[in-house]
């Protein structure tokens, strides 16, 4: 391509890609710069490693990383694991399949905050679930289910909210597999599990990777569900970052923000790589 042609291509890309790159780039730049002492909004600005050194020496930082990874990875895996059988079930249209598909995707329309409040109401000490369990005679007295230590409430909410998105991606991927291919596998002696393992999974691995990565990035940076339904003895990375920001410690918030971006980047790559290795596991 000639230089003139290159210029033409760049000029055409600028209105769309240029703005995106500029917005993302400037945010990343400021976060990174702040984590090294620049752009101190409430104090002096100078290059220093002290904010990083200080933050990584705190136990709360590492606990937050651990906790956010726990929520991010498990939410992504649970969402995809639930979406796969549904996508396979809905692959071929049947009476009512459109309605079922629409209902399953309904959580996409409910805001996370609203979902979290509904969930809290459901599992509250005097909420519906406790009353039901007592009425059924399963429990003698109400139990404390809210803000559980293992973040099961957060995982349920994340999965409930994200599964429809995984379903959306996986349904399209599964539907793109020609019927003859699955029939051929069946004809060659492959039962349902082998058809999934050896044909469906490897042929839909790109859709699954996309679902895993996007859900992971969202869940690892969770703030809403964690604030309302998460354990009170742990903080997610977002919570930690907001905490620093509220106290006016922008540089520390920058350190956590950069860590979060790195976690999203590295975590996504690892998830994508591992899922491809597992799903492309050929014939063994």
């Amino acid at each position: 391509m000639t230089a003139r042609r290159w210029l033409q291509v760049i000029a055409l890309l600028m209105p769309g890609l240029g703005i995106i790159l500029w917005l993302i780039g400037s945010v990343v730049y400021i976060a990174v710069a702040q984590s090294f002492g620049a752009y101190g909004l409430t104090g002096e600005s100078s290059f220093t490693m002290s904010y990083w050194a200080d933050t990584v020496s705190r136990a709360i930082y590492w606990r937050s990383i651990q906790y956010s990874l726990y929520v991010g990875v498990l939410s992504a895996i649970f969402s995809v694991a639930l979406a796969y059988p549904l996508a396979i079930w809905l692959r071929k249209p049947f009476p009512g399949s459109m309605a079922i598909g629409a209902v399953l995707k309904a959580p996409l329309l409910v805001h996370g905050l609203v979902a979290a409040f509904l969930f809290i109401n459901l599992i509250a000490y005097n909420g519906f679930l406790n009353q039901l369990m007592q009425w059924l005679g399963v429990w003698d007295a109400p139990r404390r289910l809210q803000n559980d230590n293992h973040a099961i409430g957060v995982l349920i909410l994340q999965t409930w909210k994200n599964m429809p998105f995984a379903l959306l991606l996986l349904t399209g991927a599964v539907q793109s597999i020609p019927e003859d291919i699955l029939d051929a596998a069946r004809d060659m002696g492959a039962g349902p599990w082998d058809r999934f393992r050896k044909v469906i999974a490897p042929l839909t691995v790109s859709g699954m990777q996309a679902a895993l990565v996007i859900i992971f990035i969202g869940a690892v940076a969770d703030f809403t569900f964690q604030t309302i339904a998460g354990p009170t003895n742990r903080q997610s990375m977002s919570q930690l970052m907001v905490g620093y920001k509220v106290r006016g410690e922008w540089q520390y918030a920058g350190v956590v923000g950069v860590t979060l971006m790195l976690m999203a980047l590295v975590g996504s790559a690892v998830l994508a790589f591992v899922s491809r290795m597992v799903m492309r596991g050929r014939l063994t």
Partner: protein
Amino acid sequence: MAAVSIQGLYKTFGGFAALSELSLDVKSGEFLTLIGPSGCGKTTLLKLISGFLEPTAGTIIINGQDVTKVPPEARDTALCFQSYALFPHLTVRENLEFGLRQKKTPANDRRARIADVAAKLGLEPQMDKLPNQLSGGQQQRVSLGRALVMRPSVILFDEPLSNLDAKLRDQVRVEIRRIQKDYGLTAIYVTHDQAEALAMSDRIVVLNGGRVEQVDTPESLYLSPRTGFVADFIGSANVLSGRVLGQSTPGLWDIETPIGTLETCSDPGPKGSTVALCWRAETAQLGKGDLRGIVRDKAFQGHFTDLMVETDGSIYRIQTGRTAAVEGGEVRFSIPPESVILLESKT
């Protein structure tokens, strides 16, 4: 014992009967072709035999075992798909290996079988390629090889050549027949191409509207069709009605038809005073005889010329060699008595 025995098979989709009271025996090592127009039920029958569909009524027995309710993965059949249905993420070798691994065939046996099939089908240079790196003919061979390595009791073909060009089709057709004979396989082959059916089959089943019209060898089917449908579907035949005038000489019947009086030496002779009969387009002898018609269309086909000749308001087809006949001109023709075939029914 028949390799495949189908008894009283019915298959309905909603209110539509795709197959009705179909019974059929396929001998071991036989190459049987199912032929018929679109929607006649040939693919439905193949799917019933392979287990992808369950019959509404009737039984399917393979090697003496009732498999009517057995799922495809547990049947001793292998299907070659029209679309080839190769696994796009697996190499040729892995495609060939798929079924053997499912059956937990020992590695040594697996390697030996794959090597044998790959050699027979000329697939050795392609073994590490993915299906999208192969030509249509090569993909077809892999599909065939994938079925062959399984050494099934019955191999099923669902219009396997329909996606190939004419020249390749002829080549692969010969290969399939050779391999079927080499392995002594029982084969059931679906096609709508009558030339393919005639060239490949030990016997042909002509299906029409979900029923069997006729089951016979290619020669018998061509030379002695029972109905007008079979006569017209297998090769091009001119079908017409006639009135029996009597026997002019012993064994030779005179029949009055809309195009003139025809003689037939058909055995058995006519069963009533009115009959349905046919003659093949290539049996007409142009330039002699008492039959006359106007050439309405002339099409040069290479090794023969197609003439559409109008007589008594109907169009009849005549195939001849080089001819001086011109569109709009009159031609004389005759049909030898041995080429006039009496039918059981006109349709």
